[in-house]
């Protein structure tokens, strides 16, 4: 298992795309921090970029990588290896290399310019988002053998989590305007890893007071150590559950 993991990591790190991704992130974060008047503002701009870019790159790169290594996977399956360990190593290789890319590209600039709790929180959520979207990508790639369909599905999933879900929430909000929805909102935010990360970081930035009662509810829930832990558990669950589903599929799949 370790050997496969090593092969995968070496393969991905050698891949130019990940290098480009790293440099892109590095460029964006450095320029954002240098252009904005204050580091906090820079962090806010970076937040928007991270919440859109990371899921997109992670989900598409991972899906394509899985499809491209179909032959490699077939080769491995013909060996006396458990399918579970092959799949987990693939997942491990993808997440560790993409996490490394994120850490080098965005984490280090954040640590340089804004090394406080908010910055660390941002790095932590960025890393968890990476893990979550790699495992969602593996689920999408496992769904179908058709590469075009698989990539389409993963793009749709990205679009869903970063746009459509929020649009549905907005629709829902206006339909049930007359009801107290504050606590429902906390629950809804757990249904979307991107929302969860966003709210978590924004609360760290003390913008919660801006929003009256809802902000108070959010802060009451997410603002303390328990809430932070809970939301990271939420993100972890997203990663674990989609990985388990994809693993079940991979186990049964006729390659």
């Amino acid at each position, binding site marked *: 298992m370790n050997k496969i993991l090593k092969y995968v990591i070496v393969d991905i790190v050698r891949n130019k795309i990940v290098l480009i991704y790293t440099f892109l992130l590095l460029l964006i974060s450095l320029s954002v921090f240098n252009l904005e008047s204050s580091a906090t503002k820079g962090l*806010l701009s970076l937040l928007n970029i991270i919440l859109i870019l990371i899921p997109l790159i992670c989900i598409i790169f991972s899906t394509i990588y899985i499809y491209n290594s179909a032959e490699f996977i077939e080769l491995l399956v013909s060996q006396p290896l458990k399918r579970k360990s092959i799949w987990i190593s693939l997942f491990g290789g993808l997440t560790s290399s993409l996490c490394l890319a994120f850490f080098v590209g965005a984490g280090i600039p954040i640590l340089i310019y804004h090394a406080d709790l908010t910055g660390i929180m941002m790095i932590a959520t960025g890393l968890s988002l990476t893990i979550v979207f790699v495992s969602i990508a593996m689920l999408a790639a496992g769904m179908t053998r058709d590469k075009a369909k698989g990539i389409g599905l993963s793009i749709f999933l990205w679009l869903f989590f*970063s746009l459509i879900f929020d649009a549905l929430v*907005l629709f829902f909000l206006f339909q049930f305007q007359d009801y107290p929805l504050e606590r429902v909102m906390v629950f809804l935010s757990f249904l979307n890893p991107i929302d969860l990360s966003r709210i978590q970081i924004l609360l760290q930035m003390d913008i919660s*007071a*801006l*929003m*009256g009662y809802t902000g108070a509810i959010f802060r009451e829930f997410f603002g303390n150590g328990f809430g932070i832990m809970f939301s990271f558990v939420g993100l972890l669950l997203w990663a674990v559950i989609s990985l388990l589903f994809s693993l079940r599929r991979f186990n049964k799949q006729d390659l």
Partner: protein
Amino acid sequence: MRNLFFALLGVFSVVFHANAKVISVGKSKQFTSIQKAIDFSKNGDTVMVFPGLYKEGNIIIQKSITLLGRGYPVLDGENKYAIISIKAKNALVKGLKLQHTGRSEIRDLGAIMVYDSDSVSVINNILDDTNFGVYVQNSKKCTIKGNSITAYGKDEVQSGNGIHCWHSDSLTIIGNKIKGHRDGLYFEFVKNSLIEKNISTMNVRYGIHFMFSNQNTYIANVFERNGSGVAVMYSKKIHMYKNHFLNNWGDAAYGILLKDITDSDISGNFFTENTVGLHMEGCSRIKLSRNTFNNNGWAVKIQASCDNNDLTKNNFTGNTFDIGTNGSLVLNTFNGNYWDKYEGYDLQRDNIGDIPYHPVSMYSMIIDSNPAALMLFRSLIVTLLDKTEKILPGVTPENLKDNKPVMKKLPL
């Protein structure tokens, strides 16, 4: 004749001087009790209090005397009494340290109580752990200057106001530092007064709170980190210049809340890091110019119940929302302000943007009608909606716009 006049004048002045005695109070002085010294004194005398701890309950001044502290003698209210009560003309209280006033549910107890007086001055005192600090009732032309007033109030019900003025006229309140009361400054039915260079911080409720107080002028005061910021209501002809409203951050905190304020002038003020910088409700004919709104949640919330207000030449920078409103009716004008979110162009290079700026974003309207939409704060969908709305206004009030936004930040 002329000589006689001077001679008479000389005699009078000697007589006057002979009358104006200095009565000392202290250990091994003429008197050991302040109250006895005051009872002994006549109009125009000075009662000089030397350092020491005086526990005399409520000291009452009913003469035109000066009560002067040397080296801040301590007057202690033992958590039971109001410390000094004044009912006089031309009295002066200066240089005392007053501490531990009583608290009562029935009567207002404070460190310095001024009732039905004229031209009373309260200068350079230190007030510590007071219920009410300086309490002025039904008085005229009083001066409250350079006092440091500190309390440790925990909730609204249990604590009093720092400087409390009721039904008074022509007060001058300058350079006081007020901390930890219910309201830092409180005025009700006070008119023609000047409030200048006071610092009101960390009060339980409001930094300043006034109602039914017309024709007052507020200059260069600082209101910082108060529980609910500043609230002023039901007053006319208010002038506010160069005040600072800072760091009032909370669910119901406002830099300043104006309710039913009319015919006023608010200019040159700084609103920094408040949840809502300026909240206006039922206000008419207010001129808001040359103010700076920086890093607020909402810079200005202007309810549809306001009319004929005029926002001119203000700077709006780094606010999450520039203007919030709750309806589509717009009876106020916005002109020549600087908005850092303005994305227009200036072809003539005359520093005036060629297309109007709409300071109300769609999301701020959504939040106003549906606060739970907070969950989508800074999400992609909200950004997209805002951009679309900017191009094709549908939900936001179309008339709420600045026709001549300036391109460069105004030097204020």
